[in-house]
C-alpha cells in the first residue's frame, strides 16, 4: 500500500491540534477540537484507500485503474454523522451559554469536594497552585447564581413555546 505524504501530514497536524483543543475547558474549543479530530479520522479513512485512481465505474474489466470506493462510502457516512452531532453539540453549548452565561465547563462538584478534603488533610504541606482553580467562590451553586439561572431558564422556555 502506498501512502501519500500530502495526506499523512495534514492528518497528523489535525489530530495534534484536535487533541489539544479537546483538552481545553472552553466548550467552543472542545467543539472545534472534535471537528478537527473528526476530519483527521476521515483523512485516515481516505488514506486506507491506497493509491488514487479514476472513478470506480467499471464494466467488468480489470480493477487496476480504479480507486477503492469503499473508504469513500465510509467517509461519506462518517461526515454525515459528524455533521449531525456537531449541530447538536453547538445547540447544546448555546443552551448552556443561555443558562449560565459561561462557555467553560464547570469544575466537577466531586473534584471540588475531594480537593477540599485533600487540602484540609495536607494543610502543613505546600498548597499546589491548582487548588486556586477550584475555588468554592466560583461555584455556581451559590443561591444568587442559581436564582438567576432559573430566570434565564424560564425566559428560554417562554421563548420556545410562543
Amino acid at each position, binding site marked *: 500500500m502506498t501512502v501519500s505524504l500530502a495526506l499523512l501530514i495534514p492528518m497528523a497536524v489535525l489530530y495534534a491540534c484536535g487533541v489539544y483543543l479537546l483538552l481545553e475547558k472552553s466548550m467552543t474549543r472542545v467543539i472545534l477540537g472534535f471537528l478537527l479530530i473528526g476530519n483527521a479520522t476521515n483523512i485516515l479513512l481516505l488514506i486506507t484507500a491506497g493509491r488514487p485512481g479514476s472513478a470506480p465505474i467499471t464494466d467488468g474489466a480489470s480493477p487496476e485503474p480504479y480507486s477503492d470506493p469503499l*473508504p469513500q462510502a465510509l467517509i461519506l457516512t462518517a461526515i454525515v454523522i459528524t455533521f449531525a452531532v456537531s449541530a447538536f453539540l453547538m445547540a447544546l453549548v448555546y443552551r448552556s451559554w443561555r443558562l449560565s452565561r459561561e462557555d467553560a465547563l464547570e469544575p466537577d462538584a466531586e473534584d471540588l469536594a475531594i480537593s477540599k478534603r485533600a487540602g484540609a488533610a495536607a494543610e502543613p504541606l505546600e498548597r499546589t497552585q491548582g487548588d486556586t482553580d477550584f475555588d468554592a467562590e466560583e461555584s455556581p451553586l451559590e443561591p444568587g447564581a442559581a436564582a438567576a439561572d432559573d430566570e434565564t431558564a424560564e425566559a428560554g422556555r417562554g421563548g420556545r413555546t410562543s
Partner: protein
Amino acid sequence: MISLVPLVVLLPLIGAALALLFSRRPRLQRAITVVALAAVAVIGIVLLVVVDTGETLVMQVGGWPAPFGVSLVVDRLSALMVSISALVLLAVLVFAIGQGLADGDEETPVSIYHPAYLVLAAGVFTAFIAGDLFNLYVGFEILLVASYVLLTLGGTEPRIRAGTTYIVVSLLSSLLFLAAIAMLYASTGTVNIAQLSERIADLPTEVQTLLHVMLLMGFGIKAAVFPLSFWLPDSYPTAPAPVTAVFAGLLTKVGVYAIIRTETILFPSPELNNALLIVALLTMVVGILGAIAQADIKRMLSFTLVSHIGYMVLGVGLGTAAGVAAAIFYTVHHIVVQTTLFLATGLIERRGGTTSIHSLGGLLKASPVVGVLYFIPALNLGGIPPFSGFLGKLGLLEAAAAVGTPLAYTLIGAAVVVSLLTLYPLARTWNLAFWRPRSEVENYESTITVELHDDPWAGTTTATRSLSGLMVGATTAMVCVSVSITLLAGPLYALATRAGTDLQGTERYVTAVLGPAGEAGDR
C-alpha cells in the same frame, strides 16, 4: 424467516418517523411506539426460537453477496439480546407513558421523547445484528445520537452539564472506533466481521495487538469498564427515571456485547485475556467502593452498574466457552435487574420527592408496594440465593475455577467480596428510606451516614406525587421478568451455554456469513 431480520431495525425506525409526524396527537404517538416495540419483541422471540434450532440467519442486504454488501447476522447471542432488550424497552416505555400521563405532559413540548426512544431502540438492535464492523459503528452512532437527545431532554442546567460530559466522552469513543475501523481496513482490506476474522489471524502480532487494544478501548468507554468509566455515574443520574433505566439496562450492555464479539470472533487469540481479567477486577472493586460513598440512590445504582460490568468482562476475559456462556447469562440477568432497580428508584422519587437517603424515610409504611418492588431486585442484584444474580455469579465463579490460574482465583475472591459489598449500599438504602420512620429523618445521626454527602447537582426535593397504575404495573412486570429468569434459569442457562459454545471457534460464524470454506477460498 430471513425477512424478519431487517424488520427488527426497520419497525422502530418507521415507528419513529410516524411518531414524529403525529407529534401533535399524543395518544396516537404512544400507540405507534408501543406497537412498534411490541412487534419487535415478538419478532425477537420468534428469531430466538428459529436460531436455537442451530441455524444462523444471515441477511445479505440488497442481495449483494457477503464480503461486498452489508450482512445482518442473527445467531443465538444476537437473538437473545434482541428479545430481552425489546422486552425491557417495552416495559420502560409503559412506565414512561404512565409517568407522562400522571404529570399531564400533554401540553409540554416533550413530544420528541417517543421518536427519540424508538431511534434509540433501532440503534441498539442494529448493533446487535450487525455482521459488518462499519454497520456496528453506525448502530452505535444511531443509539448515541438518540441518547444525547434523551439525556438532555428539557434542557435544564444539570442535564446540559451532565449531557456535555456524556457527549464529549461518547464522541471520543466513536472516533477511536472509527479510526480502528480505518486501520483494520488498511491492514485487511475488509470491514465484514466474518472476513476480518479470517484475515486478522494472518497479520503480524504487533499489528493485531494494536488493533485489538483500539477496538477494546472504543467499546470499553461505551461499556464503562474501569479506567474509562468515570463519565457514567456523572451523567446518568440527572436524566428522567425512565431514561436512566433504559440507559443503565441497555447502553452499557451494547458495549459488553461488542466486547464479546471482539474477543470471540475478531481476536480469538488469548493474548489480552489476562489484561481483561485485571481490568475486570479493578472495575468491580473501584465501582463498588464508589457506590458505598454515595447518598443519592441513582448515583449509588450507577456505581453498582459500573461494578457489575466487571463481572461480564470477567466472563469474557476467561476466554473459555463456559466463561462466555456465564457472561451472556449474567448480561441478560443484569439488563433486567438494573432496569428494574432504576424504575423502582423512579417510584421512590415520586413517593418521597427525592432520591437522597438523607431525606427519605417511612416509605414502607407509606407505600409497601414500592418496598417490595425495590427489595426483590435489590436482593437479586446482591446475588442472594436463589435469585438469578446468584446463579449468574455462580456460573462465572465455576468458569473461573475451571481455568484455575492464580489470577482467576484472585478474581473469584474479589467477585465474592464485591457481591457482598453490593448488598451494603442496597441494604443501607432499604434501612434508611423504607424502615426508618418518617419522624426520625430530621437530625438523624448514625455512623453509616456521617461521611455521605449529597450530590450537589441532584434535583431539589419536589412535592411527593401519587403513583400511576401504569408505572407500578410496568415495574411489577419487570420484577416478574427478573423472577421468571430465576425460575427459568435452567433452560435459559442452557441457551446461554449453547450461545457461548457457538462463539467458541470462528468457523461457525464465518461459514454462516461467507458460505462453506471452499467458496470462501478465492475471496
